[in-house]
């Protein structure tokens, strides 16, 4: 008999009895929550000494992937040299009353149990868009790259259903984690007047139900150990592309509408449509499970992401119609053939254009709302709205100039017209670019503040860790949107090279806008649960 066989036989007798229950019996509720109540985590901070067994127990007892953890332990430090304070804080999911994850999910892949209040993620419904991670003020859901979905703490609901404590509750040597029953309206009221802990997000929005208890109050200068260490976040490149290209596309169609001439419409519309479709492809590539993207409209009742998808879906439809119409109307000029049903189209052209621009603008506004709705102050309407709308205007105008000048040059048509329009277009670009650069730069006013505000932290990160992309952003837009146009306008000799200048300017502006959007994602700083020391 091997030693292993010998010893494991002895334990056959203990087959059905979960001996650990002796220790966690008074750490979980004896009965189910009633109406208006739910389960919540109750953490005794005075008992938590930061051993982090809760993290590893959750990992092992739930069979998580090698690198995956659903619980985290952070640190608060403060006080004075005479009375120093350090406090470890353990956190998993807060099973909020109004979960941000659930509200933002485009595929309705979250549900909040009616009886227990546990917010559960439906792993097989998930398409891996990761919006829930942005919507959760506490970064609770974890993206699992190999599976293409997110996963998160479910308060070990199966265990609780059988009267067994969640892994973290079972494993804390100091009994610091309990499952309590809370009154939901009481929690909502508490959250409307106070935060969970120093530097945590404003809680009215999602109303977390976790309660942190401590014998003595924390000192007022208590700060998370990672407060001064901002790390750039995920750039979400597919989303950067998607946003830039949709905004460019919508801008072009608006430009067409505003323009007095419709000569270049086929070219403009075709280019804009390609960009729109490329944007949709790029955004879909952001998904962990793109094949299930069709589910993304399910959440339109609550999710701005679903609404954006619907709006841009409509936009793609009407933009295609519009582009097709423009091409068919000018088919004589383009292909030398007149199509017979043109007369049937022309009455509806205005309507199609209205719908295309309408859905496009609604789409862009939904894009803005997607980020505003995350309640991250640097992503609110006042930062995001101008950024996205100015991208629409700047890139729309620049593309208009690019396409029309190059179409004019290569197909030798209406060259004079575009040259006349060019100074208007270039002036528009100069003003809009300057406006946007100044507006974006206003963030750096916070650098002079003594207080380490969110704005200041983001500004510092941009000038330090994100210095290179920041320089690219400013230099490209400055050159492409202001310097080059001014040079062109001032020197009449350059007029015949308009199409080249337009191309250069366009490329530089694209780089500039792309960098702006890249910094938008990477430079985000938000209040969060206290993190650990991070070096």
């Amino acid at each position, binding site marked *: 008999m091997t030693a292993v066989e010998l010893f494991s036989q002895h334990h056959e007798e203990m087959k059905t009895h*979960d001996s650990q229950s002796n220790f966690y019996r008074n750490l979980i509720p004896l009965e189910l929550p009633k109406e208006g109540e739910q389960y919540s985590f109750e953490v005794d901070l005075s008992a938590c*000494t930061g051993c982090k067994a809760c993290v590893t127990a959750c*990992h092992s007892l739930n069979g998580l992937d090698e690198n995956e953890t659903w619980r985290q332990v952070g640190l608060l430090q403060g006080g004075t040299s005479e009375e120093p304070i350090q406090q470890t804080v353990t956190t998993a999911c807060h099973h909020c009353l109004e979960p941000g994850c659930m509200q933002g999910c485009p595929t309705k892949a979250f549900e909040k149990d009616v009886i227990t209040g546990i917010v559960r993620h*439906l792993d097989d419904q998930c398409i891996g868009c990761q919006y829930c991670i942005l919507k959760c003020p506490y970064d609770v859901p974890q993206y699992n790259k190999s599976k293409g979905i997110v996963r998160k703490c479910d308060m070990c609901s199966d265990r609780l259903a059988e009267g067994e404590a969640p892994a973290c509750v079972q494993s804390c040597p100091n009994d610091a984690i309990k499952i309590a029953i809370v009154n939901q309206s009481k929690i909502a009221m508490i959250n409307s007047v106070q935060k969970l802990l120093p530097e945590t997000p404003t809680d009215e929005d999602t109303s977390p139900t976790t309660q942190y208890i401590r014998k003595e109050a924390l000192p007022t200068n208590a700060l998370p150990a990672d407060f001064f260490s901002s790390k750039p976040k995920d750039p979400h490149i597919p989303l950067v592309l998607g946003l830039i290209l949709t905004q460019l596309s919508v801008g072009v169609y608006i430009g067409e509408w505003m323009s007095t001439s419709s000569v270049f419409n086929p070219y403009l519309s075709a280019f804009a449509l390609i960009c729109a479709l490329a944007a949709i492809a790029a955004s879909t590539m952001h998904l962990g499970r793109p094949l299930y993207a069709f589910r993304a409209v399910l959440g339109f009742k609550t999710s701005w992401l679903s609404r954006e998808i619907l709006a841009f879906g409509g936009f793609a439809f009407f933009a295609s119609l519009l582009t097709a119409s423009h091409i068919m109307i000018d088919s004589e000029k383009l292909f030398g053939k007149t199509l017979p049903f043109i007369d049937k189209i022309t009455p509806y052209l205005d309507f199609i254009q209205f719908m295309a621009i309408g859905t496009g603008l609604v789409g862009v506004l939904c894009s803005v709302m997607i980020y505003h709705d995350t309640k991250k102050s640097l992503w609110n309407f006042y930062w995001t709205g101008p950024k996205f709308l100015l991208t629409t205007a700047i890139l729309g105008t620049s593309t208009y100039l690019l396409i029309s000048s190059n179409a004019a040059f290569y197909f030798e048509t209406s060259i004079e017209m575009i040259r006349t329009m060019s100074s208007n277009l270039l002036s528009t670009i100069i003003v809009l670019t300057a406006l946007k650069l100044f507006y974006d730069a206003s963030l750096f006013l916070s650098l002079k503040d003594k207080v380490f505000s969110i704005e200041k932290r983001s500004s510092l990160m941009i000038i330090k860790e994100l210095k290179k992309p920041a320089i690219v952003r400013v230099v490209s837009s400055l050159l492409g949107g202001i310097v080059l146009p001014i040079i062109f306008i001032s020197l009449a000799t350059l007029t015949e090279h308009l199409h080249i200048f337009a191309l250069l300017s366009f490329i530089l502006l694209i780089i500039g806008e792309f960098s702006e959007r890249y910094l938008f994602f990477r430079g985000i700083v938000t209040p969060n649960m206290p993190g650990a*020391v991070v070096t």
Partner: protein
Amino acid sequence: MISSKIKPLFNALTSILHQKQGKYTSELLRSPGEFGLGQVPLKWKPTGATNMICGFCATGCSLKVHLKDKQAVNLSPNIDYPVNLGMACPKGWEALSPLKSDERAGFPMIKDGKGGYKEISWHQALERFTDKMKDTQKRHGKESVAFLSTGQIPTEEMALLGALTKFGMGLLHGDGNTRQCMATAVVAYKQSFGFDAPPYTYKDFEESDVIVLVGSNMCIAHPIMWERICKNPHNPEIIVIDPRKTETAMSATQHYMIDPKSDLVFFYGLARILINNGNINEEYIAEHCNDFETFKEHVQDYTEEMVFEKSGIPKESLHTLADTIAAGKRVSFWWTMGVNQSHEGVRVAQSLINIALMTGNIGRPGTGANSITGQCNAMGSRLFSNTTNLLGGHSFESADDRKKIADITGIAVENIPDKNGYAYDQIVDAIDKGEIKALWVIATNSAHSWIHHNKFKDTLKKLDFLVVQDMYQNTATAKEADLILPAAGWGEKDGTFINSERRIGPIKKIAKAPGQAMADFFIFKLIAHYWGVGEMFKEWETPEKVFQILKKLSRGQPCDFSGITDYKMIDEQGGIQWPYAEGENDTSNERRLFSDGNFYHKDNKAKFIFESPKKLPEPCSVEYPYTLLTGRGTSAQWHTQTRTKQSDVLHKLYPENIYVEINPENARSLHIKPYEKIRVFSKRGTVEAQALLTPTVKPHQIFIPMHYKDINKLTFPSFDSYSRQPSYKYCAVNVEKIEQI
């Protein structure tokens, strides 16, 4: 009829649109685990389970390994063990992860002459080992070969190594890394009590009403012992004596932030107050102790003013502490590295022993002068490594002891050395001087953990031949080796450990070692064979057989455990503490020593030992005005991290790169911002680390965790004169901004 076809179709369509079940949901399904477990992940549902002692710290928690087809798939803490009562710290939970690393040594390797290594066969490796070692001995003498061992292999392996080297190979010098953590406690106990005997059982944590923790950050270093304190129903005073406001100090009822290394003055001053207030147990002293009167006289010099001057603790506070101890019915004193790793650690430990003795706080539940051990089997090393003590806690210098060992093992008494060999630091010096030319390092990472790294690095280069036997092939020390022998780790071999409360517990083979890596036990057996002394160790066939030999060696000693039948008995009883002699009546599973007041000296009395404090080996100066403190960073890191960094989860639970805790006042005057990279330097070396501004460390003191390789570039090589333990916890440094160009 139609609806019966439509419904499933409808369900199928709905499920494509909104899917509640599927393969991803199934991934996380849980099921009852059986074997006394709650729900476990279904994919890892065990078909068997077995319990064994964790291989990290000396708390000695029992872990239940979940087995599927006899291989380990998962683990959780064992509920039915008197040590950890169903709990474990994150290292224990992740004990299986380090086994699967890519950095495991799977094959013997030698330097390939091009800066790398090449694999060789075991036969070649063993021949090379014996040839080079014997050759070195021929040219430079038998004692020119030495070994450095560890506190993290089973006792059976330690004994075999110790016997093989000293009796079979003729080595004289060998030590273990226990020198770096426990030697002070060993010597303190030996001198005071007559034998290296930590007297407590963990139940004492629950039974004490005044718990004094000296130089112990228990919440981080021994979280499961802290668990036992949490279970104490007497609402005890928890008194922490530590220069930093550690996690443990945060949970204390009283915290004395004494200046670093002012311990001796502090505790003598404390003793003086207790004595002068009459808060001593005169009866106990008279019956069970020697030399109290001289001690009483000695402490009179340590007035409240002197204590305040040296330690920063004012008179009122010192009296509060004294009053608390006086009022306590069951006062216990616990210490670990803060005391042990000091230039006068032995005397500090004894100052605590003295207070326990004179207040009669020893031998009763909830009392004691209790040294907490560091490594999982340091206790086994102290008794059976054959380094400072002859096997079984005997003395090399005693002819009677040598004869006893010779008779039990059947090894000729001439083979047993009649004197002690060098301690770790003396071995390092001997290598430096050219006295020792070949070194065999087993399961320890000296190139990271030894003090004054820059000198050690140079010293290692002077060796003719360095053999490193380890689980991993790229530890800092393995990278210097001429020959690497791949060893199996915890979970891949059998044996026993002894934990901090003297409890013997089993470890078992529940996984296969990678490649051709072998248990150290069998590597030693093979070396014995190749060396030509296989016959000498004929009876040392398996760990279980060696255990029987150890039993015999322990007979008649204070650590006598000859009453334990075999491994099965240990497993069934939930670990067994020594002493457990034959005919032992007391079968309670939580026993302590000295309940009858009898100590191990010939007259059964304990001794009061004391001495004037020594000068600080490297005091602060104008050039180096900061004190460097070192210690444990998190409970997710184990020492030099050769194992813990292999676990992805543990890796997330500690700061990746080296950092230094500095007081915000100091940072402000130096214009150092949070997380800024700064330079920390001593006379011996420079380190760049990120600054963590925190008031938990006092002004002009800084703290750097020991887990980062560079830390020992700074430390100062002073050693306790009695225990030869390195003093890691104090050296003089300076701190400066790194100027941006």
